[in-house]
């Protein structure tokens, strides 16, 4: 399959290209920074790839309203630099921010550990401009954070893999950059005590910005990040040390906040096989005991990061001599039985036919198929890539 690739210079050109493509009946795929390019089923047909890298301007930024509208091709890190000059940020910390574009992040609903405190993209987006399959440019939401006028197109587009339209611009609510940030790490945390930085830390009324745990040869490296004003962060760090002592854990060591993000991202982006596991937070003990240990034994060079308060784990590995498929399928069936799921955002071609990307379809799938049919009746956008091969 050889598709043409084009990078429109502005929204008008994108609209024109998509209108022409509609007239020809071309099947389209959208290309952002390529950080999640493998996520989803391989598209059934692509005649034209529309690359968003030149759609990378800030459309409107009102620091006093803490809202920004950007074009979909803008990389996250570039946006953060603009916002930082006004002491603000988009509270989103997925891996690879230099490459990942806002449009791509929205399409795949990407997130990092700060989701604990700030929520995910559906909690941050307030407005959107989509270019529909027929080339029509449409808006939803707006430029104010609080808004219930009409159906919530911005949130509906989050995690839609480009299957409803090109994400041309998006408007986000922003947060202040914290005055102080401190990261703490505790080594050698046994898997049975991961809840110390999950459920227990929330129960203790501490308010970390993020926590995660990296699997090591010796249990887990538990990481906690506090952000806020100096005095508040200092108090929380002190109380976290007490909290750790009460849980029977080693004393936390201070680390640079930048390392907090890079360690998690490093674990998530290693290798060529990526899994994302989700369970109810109450199943955290089961997850590490019955699933992660099993996967660690079956995968080569496995790296794992767990977001214990969210009940989410990312596993990455390199396909080697061993066959990981039976362990992945075992994991999926356990997770689905617990009310969770296992998604495969990236995998080598050899595995694709043997492990489904999304697993069992959700009960509301027929409604999803209806939604796709309304937005894109000819299935010309990202044909076959999304859940259920929509």
């Amino acid at each position, binding site marked *: 399959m050889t598709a043409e690739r084009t990078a429109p210079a502005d929204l008008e050109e994108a609209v024109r290209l998509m209108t022409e493509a509609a007239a020809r009946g071309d099947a389209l795929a959208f290309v952002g920074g390529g950080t999640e390019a493998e996520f989803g089923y391989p598209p059934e047909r692509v005649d034209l790839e529309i690359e968003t890298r030149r759609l990378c301007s800030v459309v409107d930024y009102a620091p006093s309203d803490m809202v920004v509208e950007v074009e979909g091709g803008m990389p996250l890190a570039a946006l953060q630099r603009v916002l930082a000059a006004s002491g603000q940020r988009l509270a989103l910390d997925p891996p690879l921010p230099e490459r990942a574009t806002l449009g791509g992040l929205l399409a795949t609903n990407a997130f990092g550990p700060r989701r604990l405190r700030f*929520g995910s993209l559906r909690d941050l987006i307030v407005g959107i401009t989509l270019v529909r399959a027929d080339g029509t440019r449409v808006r939803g939401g707006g430029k104010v954070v609080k808004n219930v006028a009409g159906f919530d197109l911005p949130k509906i587009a*989050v995690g839609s893999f480009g299957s409803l339209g090109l994400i041309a611009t998006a408007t986000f609510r922003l947060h202040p950059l914290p005055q102080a940030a401190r990261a703490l790490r505790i080594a050698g945390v046994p898997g049975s005590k991961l809840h110390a930085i999950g459920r227990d830390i929330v129960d203790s009324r501490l308010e970390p910005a993020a926590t995660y745990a990296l699997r090591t040869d010796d249990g887990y490296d538990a990481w906690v990040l506090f952000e806020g004003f100096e005095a508040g962060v200092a108090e929380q760090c002190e109380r976290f040390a007490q909290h750790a002592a009460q849980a029977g854990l080693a004393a936390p060591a201070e680390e640079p906040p930048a390392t907090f993000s890079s360690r998690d991202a490093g674990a998530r982006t290693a290798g060529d096989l990526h899994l994302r596991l989700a369970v109810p937070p109450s199943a955290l003990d089961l997850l590490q005991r019955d699933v992660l240990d099993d996967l660690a034994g079956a995968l080569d060079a496995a790296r794992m990061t767990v977001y214990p308060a969210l009940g989410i784990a990312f596993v990455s590995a390199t396909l080697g001599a061993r066959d990981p498929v039976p362990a992945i399928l075992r994991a999926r069936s356990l997770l689905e039985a617990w009310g969770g799921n296992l998604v495969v955002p990236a995998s080598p071609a050899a595995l694709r036919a043997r492990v489904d990307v999304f697993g069992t379809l959700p009960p509301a799938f027929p409604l999803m198929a209806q939604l796709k049919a309304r937005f894109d009746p000819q299935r010309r956008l990202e044909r076959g890539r999304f859940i259920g091969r929509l």
Partner: protein
Amino acid sequence: MSRAQVLTAEAELAAAVGRAATLTGPGDLRTYECDGLDGLRVRPRVVVLPATTQEVAAVVRIARRHRLPIVPRGSGTGLSGGALPSPGCLLVVLSRMNRILGIDLENRRMRVQPGVINLDVSRAIAAQGYYYAPDPSSQSVCSIGGNIAENSGGAHCLKYGFTVNHVVAVTVVLADGSIVEIGSPATDSLGYDLLAAVVGSEGLVGIVTEAVVRILRTPETTRTFFATFPSTDEAGSCVSEIVAAGIVPAAVEMMDALAIEAIVKATHVDWPLDVGAALLMDVDGTRAEVEHTASAAVEIAWRCGALGVRTPADEAERALMWKGRKSAFAAMGRISPNYYVQDGVIPRSQISTVLREIAELAAREGLRVANVFHAGDGNLHPLVLYDARIAGQEALAERVGGEILRICIRYGGSITGEHGVGADKAVYLGELFGEADIETMNYVRCAFDPERAFNPGKVFPTPRLCGDVPGKYHAHATETAGTAGRG
């Protein structure tokens, strides 16, 4: 519909939910002819009060068979006419479905029926130190189902988000009577975010019969203060300065002189009457963090020209302050026979400017407008005061309300922040959005309810069809609409 057909439908409905739960008498029907927007009234054909999801599914199937439009209703406190009956409709009242079905503290979830009262969710878990965040002012009477339909907010959504950020799964009865679960009770769900289509759908996609909501740990520390200012200008810049200082308050509410007067008369809070505006603000979080943000915010208030700053001496006084704020709409009765409330949103930085424009508009039209609103997120609640006994004043109040929405649109805002479009503001949706935008929103509705059985006549400015699905392709439509494009 012939008389005989009506009787048949009524008999079938009574068989499905019981005779006592099927209301057909004129007196009973009159009770349900309006919601909180009492200027609009339509008598429903029949009212049913189902008790289970299966009963809801049964009445939906019956209504579809007899071609009755279906309008869902919770507590009927909505202010946009979202639960206003459609002519000849079956009104499905969910208030009997008011049980809490499960509390899962470990995953911080609660499963409730739609008729459960908002405040009762928090009450059920308060002793364990948890609460449900969305807190509309009507929270002691409004229902979770109604909150879901309207994507209700409240004072504290500034920090904690709206209903859509706190509902993780719903059970919905669709137009064909089928029952489907959307979202996931305790983890991320896969596929399109259909929850975002249901929450805030104003009763247009189906009937929610169960919901799983997220519950939060109550913050360790909350500090409240009440600051008075010479005018809304100083109060407005105080809000902007607080936010610019990197503080995210849990809530910042503003009241102008007229609103303060009404609240003082109605609730006997001892607020000063010789001020131009007041702010009621909460900051919450961990101890040292709150100490810092509270004292920084108070300092900013003084710097912005506060006339006085009060902090409540105890929880009782704090509760009284908030009661004053939350009683504001009801208090208007003390200063005006009638009022018409709007719900426009503007960028926070434009508060002072827009309030001045509204005041000029009111003066020009000879009406008074009181303002009590969520200043932190620019969600205005202008209360247009009028006397319905004076010929023409009601219509004038509505016209002024409409002009206020146009001002909000002009400043880059929205026509509704939390009350919904409903029947009241449908006409203004077409001023906020273009035809293609609205057509696209209709795609979402049509995916759920292609025959538009649910709540017809609401939200969309003009009736629109769903068309066939899928497959048919009309090239000319795409070309003409597409090249035109819309900003």
